[in-house]
């Protein structure tokens, strides 16, 4: 039996949020006796699940339910207070597209910086540069600074780089929201291709339709707790029930 691609057991994470963030010494000096008060927020509470190799795994839940925190712990960006994460396979190091994009540089330079950050070598970048630009359909804008790009164009470029990266497990946080219809369809086509190649995908999203259509299994987080885990249809149904159960304010 192959080990799971991602195995999460008993993860908890608490953030200490100071009521007023004191970052200067003067503030300590002016109010030497007033203690900084903290509010603790339990972002994740004893969450356990595993993702099988080759699985498309969706994570859904309302805003502030801990989805992104969970993904950041999987990626190794945050450290969990307790619990363990075991990853088997080459993990993509990013959770959002376009990390490290610099608005003052043109697309050509940004492909090099972003591609390198995501793990492409110089040779791979040279070989795949044309593919990246062709997939993004931004040939005409390749020497423009990114500050002149629309958010949709940025997404096209970022996504086109990301799919050129070699990984076995891909973690993505809310990626396709600003793409237009034709680009979204192009992305869905790559989802299908990635699945055929046996890649594992963990996707955090609010687009329940995407989860329903592509995910093998889904997980529902609410207030940092795992509420449901199973087939996308069941999990989405639980989500809808929980929304309906909350009286409108």
């Amino acid at each position: 039996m192959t080990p799971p691609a991602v195995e999460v057991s008993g993860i908890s994470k608490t953030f200490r949020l100071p009521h007023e963030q004191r970052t200067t010494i003067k503030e300590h000096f002016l109010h030497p006796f007033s203690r900084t008060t903290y509010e603790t927020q339990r972002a994740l509470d004893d969450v356990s699940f595993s993702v099988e190799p080759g699985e498309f795994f969706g994570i859904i839940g309302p805003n502030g339910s801990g989805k992104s925190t969970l993904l950041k712990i999987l990626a190794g960006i945050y450290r969990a207070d307790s619990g363990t994460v075991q990853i088997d396979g080459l993990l993509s190091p990013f959770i959002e597209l376009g990390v490290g994009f610099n608005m003052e540089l043109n697309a050509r330079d940004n492909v090099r910086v972003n591609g390198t950050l995501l793990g492409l070598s110089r040779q791979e970048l040279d070989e795949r540069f044309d593919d990246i630009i062709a997939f993004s359909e931004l040939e005409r804008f390749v020497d423009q600074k990114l500050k002149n790009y629309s958010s949709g164009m940025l997404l096209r470029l970022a996504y086109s780089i990301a799919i050129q990266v070699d990984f076995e497990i891909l973690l993505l946080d809310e990626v396709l929201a600003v793409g237009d219809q034709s680009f979204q369809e192009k992305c869905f086509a790559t989802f299908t291709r990635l699945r055929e190649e046996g890649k594992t995908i963990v996707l955090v999203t609010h687009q329940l339709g995407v989860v329903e259509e592509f995910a093998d299994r889904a997980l529902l987080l609410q207030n940092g707790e795992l509420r449901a885990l199973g087939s996308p249809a069941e999990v989405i149904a639980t989500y809808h029930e929980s929304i309906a159960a909350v009286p409108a304010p």
Partner: protein
Amino acid sequence: MSRLRRNLRILHVLAAMDFKLKYSGSALGYVWSVIKPLSLFTMLYIVFAKLFKLGEISAYYPLALLTGIVLYTFFADATTLAMSSIVSRETLVRKMSFPRLIIPTSTTLAAAITFCVNIVVVGVFVAWNQIPPRLNWILIVPLLLQFYVFTLGVSLILATLFVRFRDIGQIWELATQLILYATPVIYPIGFLPPWGRTIAFLSPITQVLQDIRAIVLYPDLASNRITATDAFGSSAGRLIPIGITLAIFALGLVLFKRQEPWFAERV
């Protein structure tokens, strides 16, 4: 091994981007990296060499001054930029997993590129003064390496502290100005009383600067070529500022590594 290579590639591309961005959108571009220390040099030269007549003591005063300014400018620029590097690369820190050490290191390396451009200017001055090169000038390489290690160590301490206390920005701005006058950049080291020299040579900046002056400006007055060996009265004394360099670097590394897991949630 492949992980190390990947990290080195990231380091390279980030340092190149830092250097490129520093002058992007400016008409003169890289020329600024030479203009800045040269104009500071010209001003200090007029005030101290001419008005205070320090230039009359030694013909090599301008060259000694320029060497000091170029070293000092690198230290001040690199540490100041590295201090805020983790905070200013916030999105990268919050959205990607990679060794955070790359960030301040790439910033100091970008400053080192500027420093290398300035070294060329110093070289032109040396040729102008018609000082024949000597074989021991090769020792400048390990000295500059030591200087970089010290600068990186200070940068790591500052970058770590800056995530928690933004006051460090104000403190360090003041400190860099004080360091300029506490280091014998403008005045010859011989002007200090012996006890003052002992204190000055605790700083690796003084030690490296004086070592380089002693090596390159060998025809200069003996009192301008005092090194750590002379100030501490024994060749073992040289080990004191070198030891301080290593201690600062080790402290910076340990501090940074200990705080690294929390950077993403605190920036």
